[in-house]
């Protein structure tokens, strides 16, 4: 688990100054669909997978719906209340899996959009 935890720690360290981003603040416009697709593809570190996209639907900006979304901002109260965008995605990976999921799009301390556990748009 240490490699993963190390990555997570780095991510959290990067998020710590997030108090500068005000809670309950409406976010700037969401990134483009193309940027979101490219973000998800970051999971393909070896650049060997195929993605067949069917839907990327960005919802209205809203408050984190539940503790799950808020948990992506641990130890930073302001971020736990920060607005983000739900993104409904439908796509196939490698012909093996049909993904139908709603991701939570929020900003890190530097203002970069990220889909926690998956990717950051830089």
């Amino acid at each position, binding site marked *: *688990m*240490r*490699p*993963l*935890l190390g*990555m*997570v*720690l780095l*991510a*959290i*360290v990067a998020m*710590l100054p997030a108090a500068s981003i005000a809670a309950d603040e409406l976010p700037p416009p969401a990134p483009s669909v193309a940027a979101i697709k490219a973000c*998800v593809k*970051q*999971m*393909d*570190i*070896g650049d*060997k*997978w195929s993605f067949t996209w069917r839907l990327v639907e960005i919802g209205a900006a809203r408050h984190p*719906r*539940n*503790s*799950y*979304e808020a*948990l*992506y*901002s*641990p*130890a*930073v109260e302001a971020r736990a209340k920060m607005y983000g965008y739900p993104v409904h995605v439908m796509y*196939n*990976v*490698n*012909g*093996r*899996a*049909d*993904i*139908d*999921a709603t*991701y939570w799009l929020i900003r890190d301390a530097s203002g970069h959009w990220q*889909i*926690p*556990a*998956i*990717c950051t748009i830089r």
Partner: protein
Amino acid sequence: MTPIRGSGMMSRIFLCALILAGVATLSATRATAQGRRAGPPRVFVPIKGDLWRAGNGNWWSLVYVTPEGILLVDPISADFARWMKSEFASRFPGKVVRYIIYSHSHWDHVGGAAVFADSHPHIVGQERILKNMDGRYPHMPGNMIDLNHDGSIESDEIAIPTLEHPGICGMGRGYFESIDHDHTGHITPAQWWAAQEVVPPDIVYSDRMTLVFGGRTIQLIFPGLNHADDGTVVYFPMERVVFSADFPADALVTTSMRSLPSGCGMFDQHPLSEWIRSYKTIEGLDFDILAQGHGSVTFTKADVSEGRQYFEDLRAGVVLGMAQGKSLAELKKTLLLEKYQDWAYYDMLREVDIEAAYLNLENYP
């Protein structure tokens, strides 16, 4: 094409790590400033008598110190095992690890046994652990399965569950690559185990085993299929203490067992009836304290009963809905499980659990 429709657990590991990392970061930052190690907090906590818990963040081992040496349940990781070994030397001079018991075969609990090789401990576990560690694709948490049935672990097999349920199933970005040093995109199960410094057991049992060590009696009990297919509940009758890991308390549990379980892989590809049987097995033991592989506190039998009741209510609700001809989508809207709305992760996992139970009952009616 294989739709991955299951939901909920290994990236509970990720999510839990995330939670703890947030808490740990501040203290770790301070520790680094003082020249100490960074990383999750490590603690040594007494339970009762000669029983201790050793914690690595929200991952916990159990330590039993006897006149003949130490019995350890779950080394967790090589790095943590090295820390524990050092702690043992200073806290219990002259005592070495003679037995290691595996709570189940998942690598985030059994990693690091090789660290204790110099004292030649017996390693004990439920017999299915041998199959899981014999080179075949093992039972994995978090819906990580052999999608193409080729026997090797591939990068997308680890990532796809994450993409479907980020923070809940699968593992986070880069975990596979941290093991795949040759960048082939394929890892054999043997490589997977070797990377975690896992040693297979040399003593196994089927249903129950009594171990007498250091004048003490320790009972090992296979509870049934649940999060793992090779779990052991370790029972210390003299102290009236029970230990198990990932079941009933999974990686999201910290201070309360009132926490909805994730349903990765339609509850880890094991029938709901087996989960319920597993709860009942623990409930049938005569104990006061339930120590878990996750959770900063200990629990009681009442906590186990509540968890079993949740599964029974979930199963009953889904069975009724299916009998009424409701679709999965309808069930997600109508089966509110209000009794559990104050439990952790209710908003996040209620629908996930309903879907997992629905698919589970389709597959294991």
